[in-house]
């Protein structure tokens, strides 16, 4: 058991380590311009510098805890995370009720669905010019773009979830005396949650893509801003360090959402992992 897990780990690490080794050798041998492709060691050093506090610890400046989190990377990561969360809450918060209405009422569906189908294929990034025109610079346009990114996946899945509720649950509830409102609240809504949550997971993934783009345009902090800033100084090692951080944060968000989903859907069949 233990040996097979070690073996799996070794197999998984072999290719990345091999690539890193070749990359490092190529850089050390002077085969590539470090401005274009810095060595893995340089990236690691830069990543650490990006993470670590800028100044030595000074009790006069504040608490030890605050100092620990005074590094530039953590500030950027928090700023990006904040935008993702706010944008997602706005987008999903609008999509969820609309999706519930559209899913449960044919009249609303017929009136609203054509508009949604026209708007849905427009990538959130295409809203950038309009978002700057409407909201100027700062967090507002970024949140707007992220909200659009989160809106459609949540909307589409909520509609599908409500429409795919197995009729037998509704029949069972009716024969137990449930009113329409009770059926909606206690049968349709929970029955639709697997769809809604998978929409939320896709939505938050989209929000994370959009936040990086939005930060390259409209704001002056955050992980997306930082890697674009690094390019202006030709700090290619910092660009890659920032990209790695973006990847790590994305993975972390997805893992957290996935854990939350598994908990909320612990009743659901086929969601064992």
């Amino acid at each position, binding site marked *: 058991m233990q040996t097979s897990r070690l073996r799996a780990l070794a197999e998984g690490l072999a290719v990345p380590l091999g690539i890193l080794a070749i990359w490092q050798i190529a850089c050390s041998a002077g085969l590539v311009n470090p401005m274009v492709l810095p060595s893995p060691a340089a990236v690691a050093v830069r990543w650490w510098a990006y993470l670590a506090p800028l100044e030595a610890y000074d009790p006069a400046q504040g608490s030890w805890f605050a100092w620990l989190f005074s590094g530039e990377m953590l500030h950027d990561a928090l700023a990006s995370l904040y935008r993702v969360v706010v944008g997602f809450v706005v987008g999903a918060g609008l999509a969820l009720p609309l999706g519930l209405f559209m899913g449960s009422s044919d009249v609303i569906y017929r009136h609203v669905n054509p508009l949604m189908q026209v708007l849905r294929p427009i990538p959130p990034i295409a809203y950038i010019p309009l978002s700057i025109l409407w909201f100027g610079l700062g967090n507002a346009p970024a949140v707007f773009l992220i909200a659009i990114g989160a809106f459609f996946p949540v909307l589409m899945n909520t509609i599908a979830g409500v429409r795919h509720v197995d009729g*037998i*649950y509704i*029949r*069972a*509830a*009716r*024969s*137990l*005396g*449930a*009113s329409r409102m*009770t059926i909606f609240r*206690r*049968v349709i809504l*929970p*029955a639709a*949650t697997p769809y809604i949550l998978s929409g939320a997971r896709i939505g938050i993934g989209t929000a994370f893509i959009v936040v990086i783009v939005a930060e390259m345009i409209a704001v002056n902090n955050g992980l997306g801003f930082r890697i674009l800033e690094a390019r202006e100084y030709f700090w290619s090692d910092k660009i890659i360090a920032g990209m790695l951080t973006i990847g790590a944060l994305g993975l972390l968000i997805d893992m957290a959402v996935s854990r939350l989903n598994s908990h909320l859907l*612990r*009743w*659901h*069949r086929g969601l064992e992992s």
Partner: protein
Amino acid sequence: MSVQPHPIAAVTERAMPVSGPVASGAPSHIVVTGVDKVFAVPGGEVVALKDIDLTINRGEFVCLLGPSGCGKSTLLNAIAGFSHPTRGGITVEGRAVAEPGPDRGMVFQEYALFPWMTVAQNIAFGLEIKGMARAAIEKRVAELLDMLKLAEFRDRFPKDLSGGMRQRVAIARVLALDSPVMLMDEPFGALDALTRRSLQDELLRIWAATGKTIVFVTHSIEESIYLADRIVVLTYRPGTIKRDLRVELPRPRDSASAAFNALKRDLSALVTAEQHRFEQVEMKGLTTD
């Protein structure tokens, strides 16, 4: 399991009164009068039920028996109020059936438990709708969990239960409301033979204890003889009542007894004839489509 040691036990015990609840109040409980049900299908219509007249007495255990497509579930759904007859009327307790309600609990073949609720929450659902106080609900749920031997599963979700356990929960959920009528649509159809028999015995026990009127749809001849006071055999398209017969065998019934098997032979002949018509029509449907 109730296996009787002697093969003629059922015959010798025939003189004993049929065990079962004693009828109270007006005898007729469910009255179906002149019911037709016609479904529109592509290229025409299907007469699922035709001229059904049926009176079911209070406390009676009635099986609706017939091959697939004979309209037995259609009739049950009409009594439940899920679909309205094209013609004719149905009354339960003297009131016309207009929509489904808690006075006619329904047990489905697919269990229809709410998968997001635990066993206890499923059973409590109808009581919460009724507006019963929390403490009373707790008490009633605990009673039902005991009655159906589900106590140790109270906090499980349906996905973690076997088919037999799920159907016990579904029965408990209906019993919770203490409705005078229990409608059952092939409730044990998906269960293995042993589980099926133990649930049949359980159901008879509950029926004897509660005195409910039970309308039970099945396509198993043996099941209908084992359970019912009365077996109503339906014909295949149009669904009409082919035979309405009373089962006089004493309970517990021995499926190996001569009397049981004689009845089984008679019913088999009736049902098989309808099954042949069903197969012919289905085959014709396939070749013309």
